[in-house]
């Protein structure tokens, strides 16, 4: 069952190696340092991504007005302070790309898989520290290329984050489809390589390096989530890579995988026989699992934080694992619900409606189990806990509207409207962000050996929570009114004039919410240096990471790796005085495992 970590390349006494500045902070092979590198790179990308959203929100609220903010930030793309329509699309595109891939995939999964997998399963490090380092640096490289693409002469990629060809394939169709799109594709190809290396590492580590006694059914749900996420990533990311490579072939080498019969700017292009719908299939074969790659780690984190702060076992541990597996399986056969009106056979639409609505069942089970976990708990309102409760709230609100979008008949009229924008921002954008914040507040002491200021955490949570609903709740209504997304302005449609005031409300909430992320940044970076020293186990948690020393050390535990004797959720066990029993505490004489 569980393998000894002794077989690991590191010596089993866990000597603290001499580390130079470069091997400790830059080309580090230590999973905890790599986790921090992921987190900080992800944070920087997040700041860029959110800033972009604020810029285009200002445009949507006050479309005709010249604005000095545009002039200052967009330069030649805002002549006289009026935003250019091309750059609007570019902002939307890059905002989506950065948030989905760079923040909520790499920043979330990369950070917490790296930090927690070895610490929670009781391993000295990842199976391959070197691959792990390569994975981070490829991610860093792809981030740099993505940022560089913003400064390309003809503009960054602007075909939407889904980069459907032919728009993304033809520089004639759009300025951003030239060098900007080339850099986008290169960046994403490198990103995928990084993600695959990371995922393989996570899978191998979880399978092989669990400490003695850590059976699969004693794993914390975080590890289950990261593990299954990595499996989905390995299955689906290669398909996006192939789509990107074929698109590069179409763009640069004259093939016709996705293009056919095109007449543009007065000329007929040579492409013949390809189909853009093929690209949509390939894209969404990753694209849909991708949203679960984003949300599953957040779910794992939230399960863990909710249990620890409710001082109660997570309710229905096995059902939680089963629903993770069910979601993972279903996630690979629902991609067509993005394509109900793409022109594919309507019969396929029926099949995808069926599988899509099925996925609501494991999701509902998870939501109910979370609520029951809080029931009759002893709820400790730490900032991580607030974000976890917030996660459940937005996940329900956003998830429920999925029942509308997943229903092909209803999707006809709300497809690609703001209803969709509201839905996915709540269910996976905001929710995953909350999951990430929950993880950061909860494991901050583990990462930096210091406590993060909780009062600022409260301030951060409450303003963010109100802003998130303020931004995305009204969006459902303008979507149901038929307002398409990705419109630079609605002022060309008098039909939508009665929506402009909603847009102003949304933008004000967005500005407030965006601005209050500064509180978090201040708290995060400030506490690294000025936070109070953290005790060994500040949240009185059961999992193994809290048995490792607070000080940074390569190899995680001095001396032997702790052995595991019980499941991860022995909170308020009636056989024990304390309201938590760490996993490495042996069973008392005559004590039976309360849970199997």
């Amino acid at each position, binding site marked *: 069952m569980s393998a000894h970590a002794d077989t690991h390349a590191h010596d089993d006494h866990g000597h603290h190696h001499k580390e130079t500045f470069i091997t400790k902070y830059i080309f580090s092979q230590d999973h905890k340092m790599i986790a921090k590198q992921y987190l900080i790179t992800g944070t920087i990308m997040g700041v860029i991504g959110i800033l972009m959203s604020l810029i285009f929100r200002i445009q949507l609220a006050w479309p005709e007005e010249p604005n000095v903010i545009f002039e200052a930030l967009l330069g030649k793309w805002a002549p006289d302070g009026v935003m250019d329509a091309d750059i609007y699309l570019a902002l939307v595109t890059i905002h989506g790309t950065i948030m989905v891939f760079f923040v909520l995939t790499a920043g979330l999964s990369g950070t917490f898989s790296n930090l927690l997998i070895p610490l929670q399963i009781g391993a000295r490090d990842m199976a391959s520290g070197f691959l792990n380092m390569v994975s981070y640096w490829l991610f860093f490289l792809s981030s740099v290329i993505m940022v560089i693409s913003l400064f390309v002469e003809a503009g960054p990629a602007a075909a939407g984050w889904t980069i459907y060809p032919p728009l993304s394939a033809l520089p004639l*169709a759009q300025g951003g489809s030239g060098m900007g799109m080339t850099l986008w594709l290169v960046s994403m190809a490198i990103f995928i390589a990084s993600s695959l290396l990371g995922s393989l590492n996570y899978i191998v580590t979880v399978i092989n390096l669990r400490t003695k006694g850590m059976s699969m059914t004693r794993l914390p749900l975080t590890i289950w989530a990261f593990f299954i996420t990595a499996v989905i990533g390995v299955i689906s990311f290669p398909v996006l890579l192939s789509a990107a490579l074929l698109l590069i072939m179409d763009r640069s080498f004259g093939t016709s995988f996705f293009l056919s019969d095109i007449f543009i700017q007065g000329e007929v292009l040579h492409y013949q026989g390809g189909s*853009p719908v093929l690209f949509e299939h390939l894209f969404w074969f990753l694209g849909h699992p991708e949203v679960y790659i984003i949300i599953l780690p957040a779910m794992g984190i939230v399960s863990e934080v909710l249990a620890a702060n409710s001082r109660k076992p997570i*309710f229905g541990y096995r059902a939680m694992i089963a629903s993770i597996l069910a979601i993972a399986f279903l996630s690979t056969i629902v991609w067509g619900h993005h394509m109900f009106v793409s022109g594919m056979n309507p019969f396929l639409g029926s099949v995808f409606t069926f599988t899509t609505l099925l996925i*609501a069942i494991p999701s509902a089970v998870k939501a109910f189990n979370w609520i029951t976990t809080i029931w009759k708990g002893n*709820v400790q309102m730490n900032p991580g806990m607030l974000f976890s409760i917030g996660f459940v709230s937005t996940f329900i609100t956003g998830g429920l509207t999925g029942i*509308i979008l997943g229903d092909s*008949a209803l999707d006809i009229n709300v497809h690609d409207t703001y209803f969709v924008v509201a839905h996915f921002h709540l269910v996976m954008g905001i929710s995953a962000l909350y999951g990430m914040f929950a993880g950061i507040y909860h494991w901050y002491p583990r990462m930096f050996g210091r406590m993060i200021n909780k*009062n600022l955490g409260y301030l951060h949570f*409450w303003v963010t929570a109100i802003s998130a609903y303020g931004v995305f709740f009204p969006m459902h209504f303008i979507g149901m009114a038929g307002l398409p997304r990705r419109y630079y302005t609605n002022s060309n449609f008098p039909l939508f004039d*009665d929506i402009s005031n909603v847009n102003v409300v949304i933008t004000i909430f967005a500005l407030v919410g965006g601005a209050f992320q500064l509180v978090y940044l201040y708290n995060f970076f400030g506490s690294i240096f000025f936070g109070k020293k953290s005790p060994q186990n500040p949240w009185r948690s059961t999992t193994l990471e809290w048995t490792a020393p607070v000080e940074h050390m390569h190899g995680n535990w001095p001396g032997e790796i702790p052995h595991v004797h019980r499941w991860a959720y022995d909170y308020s066990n009636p056989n024990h005085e304390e309201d938590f029993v760490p996993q490495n505490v042996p069973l008392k004489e005559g004590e039976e495992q309360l849970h199997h």
Partner: protein
Amino acid sequence: MTALLTIIVLVFILIAIWQMVKIFDLAQAKNESSGVATDKDNAINGYLMMGFLGFIYLITIISMVKWGDLPLLSNSASEHGPTIDNLMIITLVVIFVVQTITQFLLHYYAFKYRGEKGKKALFFADNNKLEFIWTIIPVIVLAGLIIYGLSTWINIMGVDESDDPLVVELYAQQFNWKARYGGEDNTLGLANVRLIDIDRANILGLDESDPNAQDDIITTELHLPVGRPVLFKMRSQDVLHSAYMPHFRAQMNCVPGMITQFGFTPTVTTSDMRLTPEIQEKVANINDIRLKKSKQLTEKGEDALEPYEFDYLLLCNKICGKSHYNMQMKIIVETQEEYDAWIKEQKEFKNSLIN
């Protein structure tokens, strides 16, 4: 003006944030706090949870009262429209009920069971019966919705060629729409963008040798006779577009290299729709807004906005480039006689070519 305002607002927000940061920072320093929630924190945040629950309900109510008339849930102008609207309303009700209950439980439990020193939580790890119940309830509800949804979907997408639909091609290009009618024979001539000949005004690439193409009619406005089924054949010449006709609850992508289709039967003429109280109210409201805007514009010396009159629209709903936000075509639903009179005035393809 807005720019200045925005900046002032931003500066104020930043100052306010900085002040709050300092206050919260100091509050923590004074308490010698460990960074872990105390009973007081639990109590305050517990009450805030209830407050937040109130906020969620409030924003739901405000949105529904203020913007609840925006959604296209009634006034559909196609035969299948009411079935979609029905399904939508049923689903919305289900969602609303589930949302109200689950949000209540979540926030209320967080409040009710807020932590206190010395209290011990209930060890409650499993209950197969409970889990079975809340697996089976969503199964039943979703099964109902799936069955209803799929039967609606199949009805809408299945085009019955036997009731002789009017065949119309919707032709998309950056950044406008064209419509093509089959003419006398109601049959569209063959076409391919490779045959486009701008010099001869063969702008849609019709096959000039195809007899069916000769009487085809190309227009920039979409006229439809009321009550007759229409079958749209969509084409695009350059990138993906999407023909979105929200009032008819209709949408289909236009894909270069292939022909897609969507069919519906318009049921309300444009002039009848303009007379419905809902639309009159909406139009009046929009014209109020436009009047206010016009005042501001004329003060600046710019042209006033034209008053709005209701029309059905075809919008592009798939990102297609710079002017995506302004790719539209007017749709006019009229009586058969009006339609016949209109179509008679249009030029047939063979007569529109320049030799």
